[in-house]
């Protein structure tokens, strides 16, 4: 688990060097026999996800978490943007963080 790439990126002034660093990092993670989670700060915008979209390009899967404001309340939702070699739901799905952990509701819709 790398938490977070956004914090690491602060060490790079040169964007090209950061991109190269990401490429080396992802190649290195790919050589491990493990499932790796990399967290990147995202804008709360359904059309735009990360500043360094090379990370999205290099990853096998991208899950975007949203905290959507609706007047006085907020609702949590997630979207699977990409899941290489797998079919996945294309809708934005609500989820809750409860005492049981993260509960995902694939049959529900975000309004």
């Amino acid at each position: 688990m790398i938490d977070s790439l956004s914090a690491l990126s602060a060490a790079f002034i040169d964007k090209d060097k950061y991109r190269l660093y990401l490429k080396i990092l992802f190649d290195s993670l790919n050589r491990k026999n493990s499932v790796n989670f990399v967290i990147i700060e995202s804008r709360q915008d359904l059309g735009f996800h990360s500043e360094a979209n090379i990370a999205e390009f290099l990853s096998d899967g991208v899950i975007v978490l949203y905290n959507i404001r609706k007047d006085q309340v907020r609702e949590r939702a997630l979207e699977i943007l990409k899941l290489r070699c797998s079919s996945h739901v294309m809708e934005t799905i609500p989820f809750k963080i409860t005492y049981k952990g993260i509960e995902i509701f694939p049959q529900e819709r975000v309004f």
Partner: protein
Amino acid sequence: MDLKKELSGLPESGIVLITSPAEEITKTNMDILRIITGGGIRGVYITVNHPYKTLIKHLERNGIDPDNFFFIDCITKTAGGRAERADNCLFIASPNSLTELGIALTQAIQMIPGDEKFIFMDTLSTLLIYNSAGTTAKFSHFLITRIKLLGLKGIFMSVENELDERLLSQIEQFCDKCIHIS
């Protein structure tokens, strides 16, 4: 109008939209609930108008057993009331938390034993205070389709003239029956 006769003709998974004048809506609600629960069916009561505590007292005053329902209360938290833990009620943050309402409905349906159940929504028109007409129509369509897929009965209450013509006609086309009480 003979409400009992009107409601008895419904198919098992029928959806009814009932509009009533504002001054009659509470009485109409109680009449309908008495008819439905009189048939021995239990159901989910989605309340946007009355807080859970008030509603329980109101049902009891009208001779309707609150044990026939699992409640989804969309208004207590919005009004700043204490959402005290109850075994037969889920409290929603606000009537505009429609996503949360959808999730709560799925959970509430599972809490009621048996196959024959109903969903009672009081009232659709109040959702319009908190949500746009488009969102209300989309949510209503989602809710009605979900109720039909589950093979349940759905009764949607609305105050007469509070749904605009376009929204009313959209919702009417999703319903199996529309009853306008005047």
